[in-house]
């Protein structure tokens, strides 16, 4: 019984020491991660199950933002030790990069929401052509990457 108690107390001490050493930078990253994941899940559930309606432009952007933030902040959290001393420029650069990607995504989302009503019956043709162009671009990109390696 004493051994079990000692082990538990040891674990509590370890957790307390970990909490004491945690610095604000990595903690902000982890909190941002958690909040983003929560927003993504809740938003998706509400829009697809409760109302049965596909997301509109704003909801789409918010969902894409939340999912991408979860992904990129998880990537940052994975490489950032919990007790690290972080230079402010690290987080700013990371968020700036994420902002650029989300900005481009918003532009694409606007295109995807606004344009289809104007295409009428040609929507599937345009979508297929765009998909083809995208595939060619992807193959070319990958080929270029492999050649540079």
């Amino acid at each position: 019984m004493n051994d079990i108690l000692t082990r538990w107390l040891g674990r509590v001490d370890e957790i307390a020491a970990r909490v004491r050493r945690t610095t604000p930078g990595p903690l902000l990253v982890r909190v941002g991660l958690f909040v983003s994941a929560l927003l993504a899940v809740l938003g998706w559930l509400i829009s697809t199950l409760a109302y049965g309606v596909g997301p509109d432009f704003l909801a789409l952007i918010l969902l894409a933002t939340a999912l991408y933030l979860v992904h990129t902040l998880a990537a940052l959290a994975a490489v950032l030790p919990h007790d690290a001393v972080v230079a402010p420029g690290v987080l700013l650069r990371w968020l700036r990069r994420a902002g650029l990607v989300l900005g481009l995504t918003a532009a694409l989302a606007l295109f995807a929401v606004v344009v289809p009503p104007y295409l009428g019956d040609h929507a599937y043709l345009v979508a297929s052509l765009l998909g083809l162009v995208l595939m060619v671009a992807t193959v070319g990109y990958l080929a270029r990457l492999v050649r540079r390696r």
Partner: protein
Amino acid sequence: MRRWAPTHAFGRAVLVVGVLVGLAMVLGRADLVVLATPFALGAALGIWRRPSRVPVVRVSTGAEFVGEGGEVPAGLSVANPDEVPYDLVVLRTAISPWLVVPEGDRPYVTTVAPGAAADLDLRAHAVRWGRPAFGPAVAHAVAADGLLVSEPGMGQARRVKVSPVTDPFEATDSMPRAAGLVGAHHSRRPGEGGELAGVRMFAPGDRLRRIDWRVSLRTRELHVAATLSDRDAEVVLVLDILHEAGRSGGIHGARSVLDTTVRAAAGIAEHYLHRGDRVSLLEYGFRARRLRTGSGRRQYHTVLEWLLGVSAAAGGFEPAPDAFGPHTVSTNALVVVLTPLLDVRAAQMIARFARAGRFVVGVDTLPADLPLPVRRDWSTIAGRLWRLERTNILEQLREHGVPVVAWAGAGSLDEVLRQVSRMASAPKAVLR
């Protein structure tokens, strides 16, 4: 060229894009493509311009030689030799427990522009003598939005020489046999010196300024003032490093046996070298290291550096007989043995020196408050028996003519040095 490895985030990005685009094609939903877009864009932008070289790390220290309790400026530098910036670099360094660096045990994270370096300045506080190491340092770089991580770049450790703080030591002028040529000890031999020994007739070779004109005018023959020579002496410090005992707490904490031994040796050497005597050091241990005899300030610095290499080897092996013994010490030298007397072989070594006719003084370096190991019910009795046995050994050494005193800084050796000097000047029976 070193490699970069993909992270879990890379696999996650590829998987999410694949699943969402696949679902979009099957269900005909453009919004799913929009959801996949940031993943694909982020990966594409990151990987298109990715670095190929790992970070270069350098460790530096500002001072090579400091005293215990001194401050050492230390620095870490991580450079990006590539043309592409790193997203971030995680820098870690190992630091000896005898170098206290505030926040030094934390990882540091910073960005590094291409062709540039990020510097981290730290201040280390040296708390114990020796050669503590600052470093090695390791740096991992992350690029492509956390999708790629580099192999570690490593910086070699730098050792700092921390000299022991010398316990203040003063001793009387008693020296059993000052046999050197020029020094600070009064001797009974005629020669150039400061102490007058009378007036005698002028002889060829006498210095003109020694002429005593008052006596010469009275006797009408040249007379000179005769003096006794001042000679230096040789002191040999023997350090018993067969065993270490006690836990060192650095300069601000408890002393172990080696701490007391090294600091006492530094203090005694400083005292005699300052007076112009010659000092040499000898290690009673497996390596039997020896520092040759020397004098002056240069020898003092050499002594301090020599003491940094003192360490107790595991196993407690004695030195080879031809490398260590009375034959390695001059007959006129004063031998000061610093020993905790934990091993009976140390007492036998001291007795050998005494039987060989050397002037030997023992200094007990065992801390008085050293806690003995406690194991069940017999520890107290066993500890007392051990202490009684040790006291017995000390008395046997005294009977051999070797006084042993506990180290207490200034004045520790005054009484025993007087005893040894009296014994040296006493008539000795010689077989004819």
